[in-house]
């Protein structure tokens, strides 16, 4: 079930890229795709009825969900945040240079 959510979100993200003209909305679409993939990674390792993969005296039988996707998603989230920060700082510079974030207006000013 969770798979469907992540693929719908990826679809929304790609729709955002193709239709929006504001650069900030492109960045938001990128974040939506990132989130969708993170949800997908988390849903990979989930096994219904199993426990969190922490070994302790309360879990004598290691009935764990797959811990690897959780390690992967941490890395993916960190990378996503880094790229988001870089993108926003680039957008600030774009706005300082052109005075707008609209793709068509920027292309018109570049062409001059």
């Amino acid at each position, binding site marked *: 079930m969770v798979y469907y959510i992540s693929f719908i979100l990826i679809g929304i993200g790609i729709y955002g890229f193709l239709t929006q003209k504001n650069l900030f909305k492109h960045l938001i679409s990128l974040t939506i795709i990132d989130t969708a*993939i993170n949800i997908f990674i988390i849903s990979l390792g989930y096994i219904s009825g199993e426990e969190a993969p922490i070994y302790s005296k309360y879990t004598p039988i290691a009935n764990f969900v797959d811990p690897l996707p959780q390690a*992967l998603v941490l890395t993916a989230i960190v*990378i996503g945040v880094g*790229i988001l920060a870089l*993108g926003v700082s680039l957008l600030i*510079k774009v706005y300082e240079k*052109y005075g707008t974030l609209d793709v068509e207006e920027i292309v018109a000013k570049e062409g001059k």
Partner: protein
Amino acid sequence: MSALLIAVPLLIAFLFVPLKNKIKYILPFVALFSLILILKLPIEQVNFLGGWKAPFGITLVLDNSSYYSLIVVNIIFFLLSLIPQIIEKDLSLIFLILMASINGLILTGDLFNSFVFLEITSVAAYILSSSKRNYYGAFKYLILGSIAGAFYLLGTLYSYIGTGSLNLADISKNINSEFLAVVPILIFIGLAVETKIFPLAGWVPDVYASGSALTPAILATGVTFSMMYLFGRIFITVFHGEFLNVVYIFGLITVVVAELSALKQDNLLRALSFSSIAQAGLFLSVISMNSYESLTAGYFHLLNDITAKFVLFIIAASIGKSFIKNKTTGIAFSIASFSLIGFPLFAGFRSKLLILKTAFLNQNYILPIILLFATIIEIAYVLRWNIKLWYPDNILPQEKEKTQKLSWNVNLILLIVALVIIVIGFYPDIYLKIAQNIASGLTNYRAYVTNVLGGM
């Protein structure tokens, strides 16, 4: 030992953050250190990080192909570090980080780890491409590159679902036809932005033609070479040549479209960036024939192309509208551009001949037609640019005053690289040996698997 190649540049980059202005003088030493370290490392060595054995932990694999790719990339970094004029003050740090991540990208034997290094490389490339106030081009690159990164991650996850492993050798061993339907497509989309395949290469002219000399000189040579290495590693060693027939067609379309666009440009840097896209397409369609000979020809051509592009991009970005004040630089430019079109006696001729020979041996007649068609267009625009720069018409006197003479070290390095092009034209053995070693390492996937996983 090989982990030092990643750790040392990263460590120095973080240690020298307070001394940003001094870091310029340290770059050559770091590059030289990596180069010497690589030459001292034994080949066929696998490094298990943290002591975890192969399918479970992250491995750094040093075999024939990664060894020679590392040498090529580090020589490029060393040469660039000797020209501190083109490295802007704040970009020296990024230069070191790019060095660490590219070394890691080539060494790694783990698919998710390669995604991480791919993203670090891309982030460093975004920052590099925003120099000279080229923020819009950099943002475009960021958006495209990050979507591609997301698809690469999705491909990585599907291969984890399909084989239960992230280790390249383990995936190569446990490959099955069910997951082969989806993973190569996702990873191809992921790598298509960095390897400059046609529909996803729209960012290239905006980024390369920003006016900064460092950005194209590093992105079109070192980064492109490492991405092509990764492409070969994944599609030939891991997927055994699956999906390459699609890559072949995309490569040919890229060649035709990019050459035609290069002909139309009235800006030298933009023309060169389209030529760079075209050469990447040609390379991908050559290696898609998936044999030892075609890989040798492909990597040989790629080596010649990056040597020529190194000279061409630095000159195109740092020179004004003519060679009037820089005659020696002009000679280096002409040599490199003749090598680009494959004029006899220059290095490019050898590799284009080898590509034609391999294509005919494989009874492939479409690639030679496209290659010769592309060469004709290349001749047209390369000669036009040479004439325009050597005999400029209607150049204003004050513009002539403004063009500065390039300093001696830039000229010296450009001339040395241009000399290498001529030497390779006569004695291609040096580059051929590198290409053959890379090709043998990539095609021999059984040796790779036993090397990493141990005798099984």
